[in-house]
């Protein structure tokens, strides 16, 4: 289980290889990569992620430990960035390694659903023209987590 909260970027391939290193029983690795996006209706230049450092690491470790137990994972990686990230930059990486594809895919969805509703991060959007706005939590996110 590797949990990191960092300002710097990360490398998907390097993280996947690190997860696989020395683990011969892994037959499947599923991944989720979250990215800062912009839409035509709401052009976003960047996003600032604030978090609660003393709580974040513990919250992510708890979620990851749940996933490992529930889906019999052979390994998992969660990397979440904070600070100001520009459009197209990576925000979060979830990797789940298991013997077979189904638990790897399910665990990845479980991890990102729970991370979205229980890890103490907050996003502020930087819109064109210099305006900023806090992102509101979405009810669908709570529903997605509750289905587990």
């Amino acid at each position: 289980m590797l949990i990191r909260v960092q300002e710097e970027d990360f490398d998907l391939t390097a993280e996947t290889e690190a997860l696989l290193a020395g683990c011969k029983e892994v037959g499947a690795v599923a991944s989720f990569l979250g990215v800062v996006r912009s839409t035509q209706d709401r052009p976003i230049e960047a996003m600032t992620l604030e978090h609660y450092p003393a709580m974040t690491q513990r919250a992510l470790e708890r979620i990851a430990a749940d996933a490992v137990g529930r889906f019999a994972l052979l390994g998992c990686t969660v990397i979440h960035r904070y600070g100001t990230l520009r459009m197209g930059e990576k925000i979060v990486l979830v990797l789940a390694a298991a013997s077979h594809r189904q638990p790897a895919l399910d665990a990845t969805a479980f991890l990102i659903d729970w991370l979205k509703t229980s890890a103490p991060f907050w996003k502020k959007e930087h819109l064109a023209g210099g305006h900023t706005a806090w992102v509101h939590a979405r009810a669908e996110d709570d529903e997605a987590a509750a289905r587990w």
Partner: protein
Amino acid sequence: MCRPIKILYFAWLRERAGTGEEDFVLPEGVATVGALVGHLRARGAGYDAAFAVPRLVRAAVNQVFASPDTAVAPGDEVAFFPPVTGG
């Protein structure tokens, strides 16, 4: 016995309260998160605005999610923040 608690505010609660962190001595009779919120709201317009919509305020005591009934004692770290939006 006047060891303070530490109160942390995040995101727009921090902006409205006008501070990210403060030491606060629990007044007599304030022993839960809910009672603490009531007390903080009476401190000024910024605090009142921060806590104005209870369903948009989450709390943690010593880095664990809390409810209005959760106990607060001297030395605790209490954090207030909006519903999380990470991922």
